[in-house]
C-alpha cells in the first residue's frame, strides 16, 4: 500500500503571516521522517495540514498519491499522537483504543480483539479496564500509540509525543517507537525540537527554520554536510567563524578570517571569491596543536569542564570569538586551565565552509 505523503508546493498563510513558505517535499511510504526545528518554525503547522486540521493556502497535500483537498480531518488516513496525548479521561483504556473503531462501526467483539492485540503490542495486556488517570506517564504514552494505531492509519503523525516524559523513559520510548514503526511498516512523521530524537529514530530529517525547510537528509549527512548555516549550527554543536573567500576549488575553500589568519575547509556549494562565508568546525574536531593538524587557531581558555569520557573547553580567540572545544580525556594536562593560552588545530576535511553569514 502506498502511504507516501507529498507536500505539493504547499503554502500556509495566516493573514499576512506566512507560516509555511512554498514547500515541495515527498515523504516515502514506510519512512520514519522527522521535522526538526525550534518552536515556532512551522513544524506543527505542517502536521496540521497533513492531518486536515488546516487547509493549505496554496498547493496540496497528497497521501498515497491522493489529493486531500476537501477531505475533512475525520476522513483522512492519518492518525495523530498529540503532544499532550489527549487521551479521553472519561473513557477506560480499552474504550480509548476502540474509539476509532467504534466510529467506523466495527462490532464490539472485533473491537475487543483489536484492543487486546494493540495492548499486547504496547505491552500493557491487563490495562484495558483501567482508567486513564490510573496510568503512569509512560503507560499513557503507549496507550496513545495504541489508540492511534487502532484505526490502521497509513500515516502516523507524532507531535513531540515524548516531550513530557523523563529522560530515561524518553530514551526507552525512542527504541520502542522505532520498533513499532518497523513492525507496522507505516509512514511515521515525527515532529520535534529535540535533535537527539530526530537523529536517532529517523530515516530522514527535515530541518526547518522560520517556515522554510532548510535541508532534508538522513541524520549522518545532516550532521556531516549541513547545507545552510542554520543547519550547521542547529544540528549538533558547532563553531562558526566568519571570513571572506580567498580561493575556492570544488573541494576546498580558503577563507581570510582577518586576525585569525587563513583557514580552510571543505566547500559546501559553490563559493565566489570575495564573498562572505562561514567556516564551521565541530567541537570534537579540534585537537591540541601538539598533536598535529594543518590549521591552527590561538585562543585563551575560559573554562574547563571534565565530563568523564571527554573534556570540554570554552575558549576565546583574540577576536573575541567564543569557541567550544571537546577533547579526549587523554589530552588533559595541567596546562589546560582558565586563562591559559591554547593552540588548537583541526583537519581541513573536518571543517565545512558555507556561504553567508549564518548563525554563529
Amino acid at each position, binding site marked *: 500500500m502506498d502511504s507516501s505523503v507529498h507536500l505539493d508546493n504547499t503554502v500556509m498563510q495566516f493573514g499576512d503571516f506566512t507560516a509555511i513558505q512554498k514547500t515541495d517535499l515527498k515523504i516515502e511510504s514506510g519512512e520514519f521522517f522527522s521535522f526538526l526545528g525550534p518552536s515556532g518554525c512551522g513544524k506543527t503547522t505542517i502536521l496540521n495540514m497533513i492531518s486536515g486540521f488546516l487547509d493549505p493556502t496554496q498547493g496540496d497535500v497528497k497521501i498515497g498519491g491522493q489529493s486531500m483537498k476537501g477531505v475533512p480531518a475525520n476522513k483522512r488516513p492519518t492518525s495523530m499522537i*498529540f503532544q499532550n496525548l489527549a487521551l479521553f479521561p472519561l473513557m477506560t483504556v480499552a474504550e480509548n483504543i476502540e474509539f476509532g473503531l467504534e*466510529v467506523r462501526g466495527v462490532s464490539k467483539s472485533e473491537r475487543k480483539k483489536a484492543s487486546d492485540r494493540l495492548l499486547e503490542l504496547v505491552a500493557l495486556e491487563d490495562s484495558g479496564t483501567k482508567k486513564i488517570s490510573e496510568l503512569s506517564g509512560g503507560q499513557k504514552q503507549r496507550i496513545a500509540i495504541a489508540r492511534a494505531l487502532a484505526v490502521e492509519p497509513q500515516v502516523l503523525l507524532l507531535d513531540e509525543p515524548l516531550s513530557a516524559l523523563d529522560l530515561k523513559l524518553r530514551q526507552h520510548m525512542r527504541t520502542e517507537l522505532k520498533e513499532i514503526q518497523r513492525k507496522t511498516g507505516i509512514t511515521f512523521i515525527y515532529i520535534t525540537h529535540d535533535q537527539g530524537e530526530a537523529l536517532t529514530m529517523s530515516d530522514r530529517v527535515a530541518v526547518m527554520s522560520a517556515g522554510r525547510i532548510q535541508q532534508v537528509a538522513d541524520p549522518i549527512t545532516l550532521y556531516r554536510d549541513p547545507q545552510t548555516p542554520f543547519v550547521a549550527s542547529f544540528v549538533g554543536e558547532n563553531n562558526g567563524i566568519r571570513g571572506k573567500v580567498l580561493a575556492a576549488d570544488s573541494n576546498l575553500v580558503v577563507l581570510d578570517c582577518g586576525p585569525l589568519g587563513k583557514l580552510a575547509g571543505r566547500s559546501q556549494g559553490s563559493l565566489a571569491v570575495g564573498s562572505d562565508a562561514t567556516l564551521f568546525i565541530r567541537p570534537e574536531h579540534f585537537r591540541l596543536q601538539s598533536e598535529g593538524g594543518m590549521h591552527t587557531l590561538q585562543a585563551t581558555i575560559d573554562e574547563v569542564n571534565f565530563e568523564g569520557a571527554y573534556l570540554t573547553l570554552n575558549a576565546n580567540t583574540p577576536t573575541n570569538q567564543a569557541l567550544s572545544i571537546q577533547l579526549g580525556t587523554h589530552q588533559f594536562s595541567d596546562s589546560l586551565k582558565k586563562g591559559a593560552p591554547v593552540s588548537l588545530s583541526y583537519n581541513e576535511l573536518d571543517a565545512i565552509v558555507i556561504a553567508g553569514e549564518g548563525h554563529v
Partner: protein
Amino acid sequence: MFKQLKSRFGSGLAVGIVGMVGVWLIALVILPQILMIDYSLRPNLLPADIGGPKDTFSLVNYETLFNNKIHLSIFFKTLWSSVLVTALTLLVSYPIAFYLAKVATPQKAALCLLLLIIPFWINEILRTFSWYIILAYKGPLNALLLGLGFIDRPIRFLSGDGGVLVGMVYAYILFMIFPIYNAIESLDTNQIKAARNLGAGWIRTHWRVVIPHAKPGIATGCIMTFMLAAGSYAVPALLGSPGSRWFTQIIYNWFFEGGNWNQGAAYAFLLLVMCIGFIALVMRVFKVGLGDIAK
C-alpha cells in the same frame, strides 16, 4: 471549615463570618421554611380561633391539591412545561456555549457575551413584556412573517403555552449558557481534535467527548433553569393565556386573593418537594453527583 477560617483570618473574624452565615441560613432560609410548613399543616382560621381548639395539625391542606383535578393538572403541567423549557433552553444554549468556548476568537467571544448580557440589564418584567408586544396578534413578528409571505394570517402565539415557553427560554438562557460555557471551556481542544482525527464526525465528537466532559455544567444549567421555570411567576402571568396557567399563579391566588395562607403554603411546599424530587431523580438517571455540580 471553622479551623481553616480561623487560621486564615484569626478567630475574631472567623466567628463573625460563621455567625453571619449562620444567621443568614437560620433566619432567612430555614426558619421561614419551617414557618411555611407549620402554616401548611394548620387550617385557615379566623384570628380569634388561632390557638384555640380548632387549631390542630392535619394534612387537609395537602389533600386539597389531590382532590382538585384542575389544580392537579396544572401542577403536572407546570412540571412538564418546565421540563420542556429546560430542554429547549439547553437546545438553544449548547451550540452558543460551544461556539463561545471553542470556535470563536477571544474578541468575538467577548463581543457575543456582551451582546448576551446587555439585555439582562433591563428589568425582567420589561423584558417579558417586550415579548408580549413582539408576539402579539398584531405585533411585529406576525407583521414580519406576513410581510415575508411565510403565513397568510397572523398566528396567535400568546394563546396556549407557546408564548410562555418562548419567554422563559429567553429569560433563563444565561443561566444555561454560562455553566455550559465554563464546562466546555475547560475541555482541552486537543480532545476534540483527537476525536476528529480518529474519524469521529461532529455529532459523535460532541456525544462522546464534549458532552460527557460538559455534563456537570449541563446539569447545573438544567437544574437552575428548571427551578426558575417551575417557580416563575412573571412570565406566565404576562405571556400566558387563561388556558396556560402556571402552578405558581395558583399559589399566588391562595395567598393574596383567597387569603388562605395555609393552603398556599401547602401548595408551595408541594411544588418545592416536587422540584427537588424531580431533580434528584434526573441526576440519578444521568449519573450526576452533587460533587460534580459543585465543581
